[in-house]
């Protein structure tokens, strides 16, 4: 409704959330909102996000879509916001239960990592039999999602009898990712058959590293839609990537928050999924993109968004 001022707040400046701004504008137009504004914390710091959220509340925003800076650490701010009567919802990543968030619309990080690893193993096996070994590059260990990803990759590998020879974490900065991945490949490229990456920057760095190494002995599945990764897929250097749906998260998120403000409630028996963090999880959609659909992945995600949108009110909401 036209008194809904919705804030879309990511964890910090990051290319992943680029689509949120557009999605917010589209949603404001499509649903007649007073605003659905993309407001970015100046740094990727929990305290900066908290301070921004407090400030947004003072500025009169009355509904919040939040990518939690920390699944646990952000809960208390969310409680404060909802204490002022503003509905809160998690987007992209989830709060850890219990939390005041109505629901979490995001990527199931574990599932995505699992799926990506399966795809990688498929690609490796297609090249021939024999024992296969993979390396896993991921982000900060202080982010609980990182552990979920590590577990998921290990689980997928174990199921297929593939060995994860090394996990390199804490490489969310471009310089560190570049240095460590190159160092690893220089010494151990002969020891692995595949690479799975479960964070944005390592995916870019690994793709570039493989491009420079040449040859296509090593398979790789990345994550997200960085242009460098997509180009590497088209050039046949990387097998594929696990695309997430940030646009859909913000667009649907704004819609749901507005509905919640107009008196809708979450259905008691809504068919939420569960993940490691929450029992009120709605998958915003992931898709495996490879050379065949690298150009049309946006259509794929649009479709996904539309599909979630269409049945959403009926499935999850109770509106008198």
């Amino acid at each position, binding site marked *: 409704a036209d008194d809904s001022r919705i804030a879309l707040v990511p964890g910090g*400046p*990051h*290319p992943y*959330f*680029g689509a949120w*701004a557009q999605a917010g504008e589209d949603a404001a137009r499509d649903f007649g909102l007073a605003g659905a504004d993309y407001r*970015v914390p*100046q740094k990727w710091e929990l305290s900066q996000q908290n301070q921004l959220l407090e400030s947004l509340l003072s500025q009169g925003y009355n509904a919040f879509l939040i990518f939690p800076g920390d699944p646990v650490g952000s809960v208390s701010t969310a409680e404060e916001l909802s204490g002022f009567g503003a509905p809160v919802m998690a987007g992209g990543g989830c709060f850890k239960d219990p939390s005041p968030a109505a629901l979490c619309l995001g990527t199931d990080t574990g599932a995505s990592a699992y799926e990506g690893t399966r795809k990688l193993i498929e690609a490796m096996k297609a090249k021939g039999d024999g024992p296969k070994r993979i390396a896993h590059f991921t982000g900060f*260990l202080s982010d609980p999602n990182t552990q979920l990803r*590590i577990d998921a990759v290990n689980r997928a590998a174990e199921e297929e009898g593939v060995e994860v*020879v*090394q*996990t*390199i*974490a*804490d490489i969310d*900065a*471009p*310089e*560190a990712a*570049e*240095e*460590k991945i*190159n*160092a*690893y490949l*220089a*010494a*151990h*490229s002969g020891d692995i058959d595949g690479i799975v990456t479960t964070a944005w*920057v390592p995916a*870019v*760095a690994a793709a*570039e590293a493989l*491009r*420079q190494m040449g040859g296509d002995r090593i398979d790789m599945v990345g994550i997200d839609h*960085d*242009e*460098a990764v997509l*180009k590497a897929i088209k050039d046949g250097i990387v097998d594929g990537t696990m695309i997430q749906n940030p646009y859909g998260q913000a667009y649907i998120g704004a819609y749901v928050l507005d509905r919640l403000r107009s008196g809708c409630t979450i259905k008691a028996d809504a068919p939420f999924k569960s993940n490691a963090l929450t029992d009120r999880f709605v998958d915003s959609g992931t898709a495996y993109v490879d050379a065949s659909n690298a150009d049309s992945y946006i259509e794929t995600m649009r479709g996904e968004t539309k599909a979630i949108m269409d049945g959403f009110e009926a499935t999850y909401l109770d509106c008198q």
Partner: protein
Amino acid sequence: MPSLTRFVRTDWFGPLLACIVAIAIIQSVSPTFLSLANIQVLLLALAVNALIAFSQMIIIAIGQMNLSVGAIGGLAAIAFAGAMEVWGLPAPLAALFGLIIGLACGALNGLLVRISGMSAFVITLATLSIYKGVNLGITEAQAFYGVPQAVKAFGSAVIAGPVPWLVAPTALVAVWLWFMLRRQPVGRFILAVGGNEHAAELSGVSIARTVVTAHAISGLLAALAGILLVARLGVGQPSIGDDWLILSFAAPVIGGAVLSGGSVSVAATLLGVVIVAIITQALVLFSIDPYLTQVILGGLILAAVSFNRLRESRFIGRFGRA
């Protein structure tokens, strides 16, 4: 043994010894360490990190700190990539543009420090925010991808054997810095101001000019590091530079630079960078449990500097002071 004594007493001897010992240990455990491919990776890391360290070193030389090296590097990086993608500038012009931005940012730091009379720490903290904010304001956290193939090729091509082209600018800079700090009045003025600002002023050195010069050089080097990093990564990422601060101080300090100013060494700083790079590589090579990586990293840094320290007291004690 006068020549040995002199050798032992040079500022780069300790870091060099630490390097050699570290390399020997790692090589004995993991023979692939000194493979050509690995050396090339090491040199690539050095090419950029050394510039970052030099950029801070020149400010440490005047007894100040520059917190904005990363922000300047990041801004120059996206300016370089952006100029090529958005304006379609040819790479050399775009690089020049990035360097000029770095130089200007650095000079602005220096001017502000002089005008305000505040410590460089505060000023560069403020400009760090400004430069980073401009970076984010322009890019909105999205990378520039329009880096031409030629630039990327420069980032990975080798001159000969394992020596990448990327180290060429760094090597030139190192030689130039060494020459300037040892032989040219400008460099001596910089060190003099760091050693004893008052005495330098009494001897007719213009403090203002020297401080601005040092900051401008610092900005220039940071910008060069950012530009090389774009060539290396193949994308102009806005987050370039966010992580430089600690490294920029660590390498000169491991190399024995005195934070209060007046005593820095190009060679020792370079070796400091090498030590950090070796440690980083060793951690990757040895397949350490990711949860333990940080602990071991800290331990190794401590070991490296303590070793250096031990050497100082032992050898100098034995060979006398003369």
